[in-house]
């Protein structure tokens, strides 16, 4: 005797549901827009290996925070861009505190973060062909200056340095002490998180129409939008850590936006290289990745569950 179909009708809902879940899971995530820094010849820049060590010189740090606080803030800014805080990337920025008060900047293979307190000048000053040092100072309007040295043909980043102007401005923790926001005090961690984005190869996500430079395209191939005076500027760009304009009191850029995260994860995707946290001094030991559960694992699991559900349904439908 043949079983009647209606008794199985209710089961149709489940495979349909599973199918929909799998379909949604396989849909690409909402695309995020970011812009990579390129060399003058248009080559995107990046570190060759994703293990980047910086040194912060806090031997005579500004007075608003302790040396340990500045070092901790720098470590948090670096961690925001790094594995494991970001599971989708391999890059690991480490910031080692140094007891010396200052350090030189320039193309020396040492990546440094320094506070300039006596004079807001580049150290060491450039030396002319006669061997004479020519002091070269930054304008007081520059709160911080980031220098990136790269190979213009390959785009490999070779050196980066970040100098903070502690002559004309104060650097504090405006989350802990918002009352310090007086127009001349900025949030150190907020500013450093932005500058570290440049240091790993990200550009601002929008352009300034005045600069006379080529207008770049974002990761989706779309020409950059205008940063300034643009009523249609998407919130996703205006709220990004890499957006070029913020208030001094801003602390929100300490946390990466989805666009920022997409940028660092595309440039340094998980699984390319891996830094060992066990290496003394945050060094750069590259080893094959040993991976825990990533998005691919969950998609595969979803597919397997969906397939199993369909098989169970078919079997229960056609079995006597």
């Amino acid at each position, binding site marked *: 005797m043949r079983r009647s179909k209606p008794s199985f009708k209710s089961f149709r809902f489940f495979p349909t549901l599973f199918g929909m879940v799998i379909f949604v899971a396989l849909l690409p995530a909402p695309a995020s827009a970011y812009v990579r*820094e390129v*060399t*003058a010849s248009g080559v995107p820049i990046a570190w060759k290996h994703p293990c980047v060590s910086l040194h912060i010189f806090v031997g005579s740090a500004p007075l608003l925070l302790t040396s340990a606080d500045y070092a901790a803030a720098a470590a948090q800014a670096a961690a925001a861009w790094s594995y494991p805080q970001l599971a989708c990337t391999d890059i690991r920025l480490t910031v080692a505190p140094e007891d010396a008060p200052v350090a*030189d*900047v*320039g*193309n*020396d293979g040492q990546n440094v973060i320094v506070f300039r307190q006596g004079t807001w000048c*580049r150290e*060491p000053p*450039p*030396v*002319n*062909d006669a*061997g004479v040092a020519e002091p*070269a100072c*930054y*304008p007081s*309007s*520059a*709160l*911080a*200056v*980031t*220098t*990136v*040295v*790269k*190979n*213009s*043909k390959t785009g490999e980043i*070779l050196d980066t340095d970040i100098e903070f102007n502690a002559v004309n401005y104060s650097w504090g923790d405006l989350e802990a002490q918002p009352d310090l926001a007086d*127009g001349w005090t*900025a949030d150190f961690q907020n*500013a450093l998180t*932005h*500058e570290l984005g*440049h240091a790993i190869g990200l*550009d*601002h996500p929008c352009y*300034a*129409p*005045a*600069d*006379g*430079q080529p207008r770049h395209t974002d990761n989706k191939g779309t020409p950059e939008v205008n*940063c*300034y*005076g*643009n009523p249609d*500027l998407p919130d996703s760009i*205006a709220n990004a850590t890499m*957006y*070029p*304009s*913020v*208030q*001094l009191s801003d602390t929100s850029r300490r946390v990466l936006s989805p666009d920022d995260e997409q940028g660092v994860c595309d440039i340094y995707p998980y699984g390319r290289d891996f830094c060992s946290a066990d290496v003394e001094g945050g060094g750069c030991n590259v080893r094959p990745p040993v991976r825990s559960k990533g998005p691919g694992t969950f998609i595969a699991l979803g597919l397997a569950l969906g397939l199993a559900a369909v098989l169970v349904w078919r079997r229960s439908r056609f079995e006597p």
Partner: protein
Amino acid sequence: MRAMDLAELTASAEHIVLGEVLSSESAWDAKHRTIYSTVEIAVAESWKGQAPGSGRIRLRHFGGIVGDIEMTVYGEARFQPGERVVVFTQGDHLVGMGQGKRRLGWDRAAKCWVAAPWDRTGASLMGKAEGDSEPAVPLEMLRAQVRALVGP
């Protein structure tokens, strides 16, 4: 970079000139640590300060390309030969890094020269409302504004 308005730029500048970029050349310093660029500008008009006797000014800024090595110092302006510019200078450098450069472009519709907003190449702007900016203005207007600020 703290945003500077036109009044602050004008007050901070020793010289304000309108001219054309003749050359921009980059070199390492003698210790091979820093690349800097030297820019030569032929002066057509001098709006503040004494006009240079040679009719030219030289500016220096950090960054540039030498061989295969490129050094970027975020916030510094970039110059290209042939560009027409208004520059606000102090010594041999721009006031406020890229803020001291206004690039000129010919507006075909209006048939006049227009000074673009200041050069923000790579600059991160702080301390000013988001979206706010010095607008592009006709050169005539910029000249009148600066001369009014400079005074007699």
